[in-house]
């Protein structure tokens, strides 16, 4: 008994240790992002105070102070966006529903955006005037829609990944159910066999419904581009489809329970 308990404990511990690094890395990335966002708010506040002073007094000292503050602010804005993408990258990595091919579809979005932000952030120290600051900021603004599109595409992709994970578990359970049904067929009456077959058909139909929704979601992801309002509208539509797909999987779970009960008794 003691050996059994010890063995169980070790298995649970090993699973926990395997799962820990993935969860920990995304948690660490999220904390980093939150910290950078706090710094961003502080830098923005400092810049606004300095700008206000400059607009009031128009002094050279105030202008110089504003330039210093805007440099820090612009650099920090790039940093926040970058840490958010790094956090999304960790979320993609730890997502159990992604294969290597799907990861290779979504990772370039992150890579491209981080590359842009890295290029933009190095311009910040070279800002020598408010005109320079305006020019550097406009580059960020020009990329803003693309960045928003990347955020939304990645969020949908992560949610789709989790749906895929549950769909895989569902498929595995249906496979086991088919094996059990096949094993019980010689002992079952014709009526019971018909009940089992109907449940299998219902499960298959539910899986098809889920798959259609998953395909719709996957095909919509690249379409989330352009105007931010348009992106938002598509994003909300996809969220609705994601919830409907999840509901299909929940209902499929209840079908599996019914099938289990039907298998249990003669």
């Amino acid at each position, binding site marked *: 008994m003691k050996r059994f308990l010890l063995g169980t404990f070790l298995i649970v511990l090993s699973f926990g240790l395997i799962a820990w690094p993935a969860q920990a890395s995304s948690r660490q990335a*999220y904390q980093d*992002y939150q910290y950078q*966002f706090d710094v*961003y708010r502080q830098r*923005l506040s400092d810049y*606004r105070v300095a*700008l206000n002073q400059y*607009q009031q007094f128009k002094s050279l000292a105030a202008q110089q102070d504003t330039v210093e503050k*805007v440099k820090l602010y612009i650099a920090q*804005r790039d940093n*926040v*966006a970058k840490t*958010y993408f790094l*956090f*999304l990258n960790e*979320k993609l990595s730890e997502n159990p529903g992604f294969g290597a091919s799907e990861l290779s579809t979504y990772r370039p979005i992150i890579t491209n955006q981080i590359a842009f932000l890295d290029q933009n952030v190095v311009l910040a120290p070279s800002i020598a005037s*408010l*005109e320079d*600051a*305006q020019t550097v*900021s406009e580059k*960020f*603004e020009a990329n*803003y829609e693309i960045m*928003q599109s990347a*955020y*939304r595409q990645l*969020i949908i992709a*992560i*949610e789709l990944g*989790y*749906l895929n994970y*549950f769909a895989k*578990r*569902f498929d*595995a*359970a249906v496979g*086991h*159910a088919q*094996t*059990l049904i096949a*094993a*019980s067929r010689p*002992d*079952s009456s014709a009526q019971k066999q018909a009940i089992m077959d109907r449940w299998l058909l219902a499960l298959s139909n539910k899986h098809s419904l889920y798959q259609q929704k998953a395909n719709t979601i996957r095909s919509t992801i690249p379409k989330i581009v352009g105007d931010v309002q348009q992106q938002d509208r598509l994003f909300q539509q996809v*969220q609705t489809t*994601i*919830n409907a797909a*999840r509901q299909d*999987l*929940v209902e499929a*779970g*209840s079908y*599996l*329970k019914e099938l*289990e009960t039907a*298998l*249990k*008794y*003669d």
Partner: protein
Amino acid sequence: METALPNQPTQSAPQITPNPAVPSQPTPEAAAPPSTPKGPISSKLLLVVGSVFVLGIFIFGFLYVQSMRPATQEPAPAITPTEAPTPTPPPNLSRVATTSAFGAFGEEIASYAATLDAFSLQDSTLSPPILDLELGLVI
């Protein structure tokens, strides 16, 4: 100068002789004032008003007592057990249900349903940052 008409009999003016003073006795008719001659109607009115007043008090009292009484509860219907005409036979476990594979299948389904129920797809940590774009410079 005063002349008497010929066809007109002359008559002397009647003389009023004072009667001896008789002590006047009060009569019931004389006691009632002449302006209130409806004595029986007034008493009827008083009777009606009084009876309405008393009736009102009774009704008010009745309603008050009714309102103060606790609501009577309807007696719960007695539950009479119905006899099952045919007892349900206990279900027999199938041969498959006794296998370890079936137990694992049950655990797999329970775990799937529980994880899916507890899992929220919309992760609040994923909400993107809202960044200020305009620098607000007037150059």
